[in-house]
């Protein structure tokens, strides 16, 4: 039906844009910038799942982004290391020896596996710990924020092994390909684009599965789900860990593309900044977070060139305007418009769900996107 056509048409258009148009039209510099935005969009896809669909406002995605980025960076630093195998910054700031826990990351396979497993596993453990104890809503948001703060402080404090505020940088090669070669930078862009598309597709499958329905149910009525015999903690952990995994992959690609990962990319402010694009694009939609993240990053880069202080106002105003007055993001504008055009009444496609995977908020925007009473702190029985 038309809705399906539109979705997969959109997917195809996105693929053509990413794989044909952008590489053809953009200079090496701009393409690399776009690659960076795509990495940020990967984090956004995960946040869309955890926050938009699962109601978990995670203010600490920087932690997982950073874990992925630092794990990759550790491998790149070890691979670049000269004779003796000690990364340059350890010679400068440390005692010139490589700590034992760095050693496994000399191996590229171990590194890739660790990037996929470590942040995801950490998220699953943390998630189990807090969700089992029914820490949620505002409590969860604040805890995740404190986690980001603690992680950044830890990174900064352990300069000898993490590079401190400088972070890790100055990579020369990526799995054997020299990063100074623009052709290899293009290759990185294609990898980022491919990974992002795969993530979007996987998220789409997850959203439309029974699990996706259950996740929305948990978001809106956690206790009700519990009385149906499900353990909501398990449901939430899956979404949270998936989001962490996406963020880690985004971070791991961000590192070679941008050439640096530092505590400034993982802390409290960076973690909240991830949310702007998601909120603007439409937190509960599939493509909203992606488009929002890319658009906001692009706007930041171009607007801040002309008006540095204006950008801060603009960012603040975006937060206020979109979240307060358009809680479902700009993506819903299109939906509202389409529905108006289609005439009154409730439009349905064959599965009874709106075409683009948004939750059906039939009385537009009168249904808040995150749980009303459920999320109120103090009412968590």
């Amino acid at each position, binding site marked *: 039906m038309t809705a399906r056509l539109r979705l997969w048409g959109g*997917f195809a258009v996105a693929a053509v844009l990413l794989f044909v148009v952008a590489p053809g039209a953009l200079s090496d510099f701009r393409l690399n910038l776009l690659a960076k935005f795509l990495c940020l969009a990967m984090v956004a896809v995960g946040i869309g799942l955890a926050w938009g669909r699962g109601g978990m406002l995670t203010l600490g995605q920087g932690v997982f982004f950073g874990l992925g980025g630092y794990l990759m960076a550790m491998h790149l630093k070890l691979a670049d290391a000269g004779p003796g195998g000690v990364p340059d910054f350890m010679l400068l700031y440390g005692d010139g020896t490589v700590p034992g826990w760095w050693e496994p990351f000399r191996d590229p396979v171990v590194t890739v596996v660790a990037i996929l497993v470590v942040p995801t596993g950490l998220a699953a453990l943390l998630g189990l710990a807090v969700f089992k104890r029914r820490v949620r809503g505002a409590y969860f948001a604040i805890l995740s924020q404190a986690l980001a703060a603690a992680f950044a402080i830890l990174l900064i404090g352990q300069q000898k092994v993490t590079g401190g505020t400088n972070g890790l940088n100055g990579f020369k090669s990526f799995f054997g390909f020299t990063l100074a070669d623009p052709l290899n930078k293009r*290759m990185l862009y294609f990898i980022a684009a491919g990974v992002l598309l795969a993530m979007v*597709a996987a998220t789409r499958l997850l959203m439309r599965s029974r699990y996706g329905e259950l996740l929305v149910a948990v978001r809106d009525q956690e206790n009700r789900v519990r009385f149906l015999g499900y353990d909501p903690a398990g449901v939430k952990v899956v979404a949270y860990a998936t989001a962490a995994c996406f963020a880690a992959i985004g971070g791991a690609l961000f590192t070679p593309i941008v050439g640096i990962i530092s505590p400034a990319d993982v802390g409290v402010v960076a973690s909240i900044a991830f949310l702007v694009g998601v909120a603007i694009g439409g937190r509960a939609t599939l493509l909203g977070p992606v488009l929002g993240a890319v658009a906001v990053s692009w706007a930041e880069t171009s607007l801040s*060139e002309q008006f540095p202080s204006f950008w801060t106002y603009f960012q603040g105003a975006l937060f206020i305007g979109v979240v307060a007055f358009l809680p479902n993001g700009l993506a819903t504008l299109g939906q509202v418009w389409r529905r108006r055009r289609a005439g009154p009444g409730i439009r349905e496609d064959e599965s009874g769900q709106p075409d683009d995977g948004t939750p059906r908020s039939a009385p537009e925007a009168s249904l808040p996107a995150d749980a009303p009473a459920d999320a109120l702190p103090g009412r968590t029985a």
Partner: protein
Amino acid sequence: MGPQRKAPPLTRPLLRALVVPAAATLALTLAACGARTADEPEADGTGSATGASASCVDTSGDSIKIGFLNSLSGTMAISEQTVRDSLDLAADEINAAGGVLGKQLDVVAEDGASEPTVFAEKAEKLISSDCVAAVFGGWTSSSRKAMLPVFEAKNSLLFYPVQYEGLEASKNIFYTGATTNQQIIPAMDYLKEQGKTKVFLVGSDYVFPRTANKEIVAYAKANGIDIVGEEYAPLGYTDFSTIVTKLKGSGADAVFNTLNGDSNVAFFKEYKNVGLAADTLPVVSVSIAEEEVGGIGVDNVEGQLTAWNYYQTVDSPANEKFVAAFKAKYGDDRVTSDPMEAAYTSLYLWKGMVEKAKSFDVAAIQDAAGGVSFEAPEGTVTVNGENHHIAKTALIGKIGPDGLIHTEWSSKEPIEPDPFLEGYDWAAGLS
């Protein structure tokens, strides 16, 4: 829209949607495989990188583009805005005096937003998109470290105007602020001269203080000074009661302070409130300049010491002219400080190098750089062609009741830069 129809399976179109781009990626990746490191001679890290693209700098017109890259937003904007102001002043002066090699300077200004990644991104933009001949800016070590690989890969030039922790020398960077042997070591020399034997180290938890303190510890060991405490506070930390308690109980007779920014305010207020005073337990600070004194409160830091290479009060014709020009442009209430002066100087040094090389070409400038000197507000400075730092005179100053810093002690002559401390025996094990 039959409600009875079961949803058709997703798998097929999805597979197609996934497979097509995946295949495309693979094909493109394989076709586009760039250079592998194995094909390259081992890069030595200081030379221009092998994949560097040819410069796109346009020298044909009657103007030449240069880039200013400072944080105008975020936490570092406080400091970096002042550097931008003095860079603008220098550019105006140079243009008014006929430009460089007869070309007017066309400044492309960018905001580093206090984030290393933004610095790296904007540096690349300035070099690749705007095709500037040189970039001036950066403040934090992390911003410099983030930009360094970009300048090396693109083989372009950065002029970095802030004192820093040393242990670095890139062919693509000119360091116009002090390295450690022009600021930290003279300050320790001064303390030793004053007969101080027990020094307490307090710093923010990041690269500069940790590296500086490593050097101070080595210096102390070789010079019979006890380090009676070494404390770090997270950046932006504002509760110093524990650290000051430790300081008070340590029996120190001097404090070496490498705290950064806001933390200084909290530290000095606490220091004063527990009854410590400059005449009995002086604090030598290396990150407090004229700009910061007002924010800390003059009565909190009056009589304390600082180590720099320039103060607004320096008595020289060049400085008189600089301070007057700056106040005329930005207002009488503004002060000038060391990083501002170093930034101002950096633009003139670049002008000198270009004119000596008679070219804007990076290699030509690198060749010509050694020995270029400038009658700077701080005194005569000369570029060291080997390590791209400049020879500077070290000044220990005392903060006066007027909020300005007055020279208390100075090195006899400009100190040759020695970023790796190769000329100091006690520093042998440091790097």
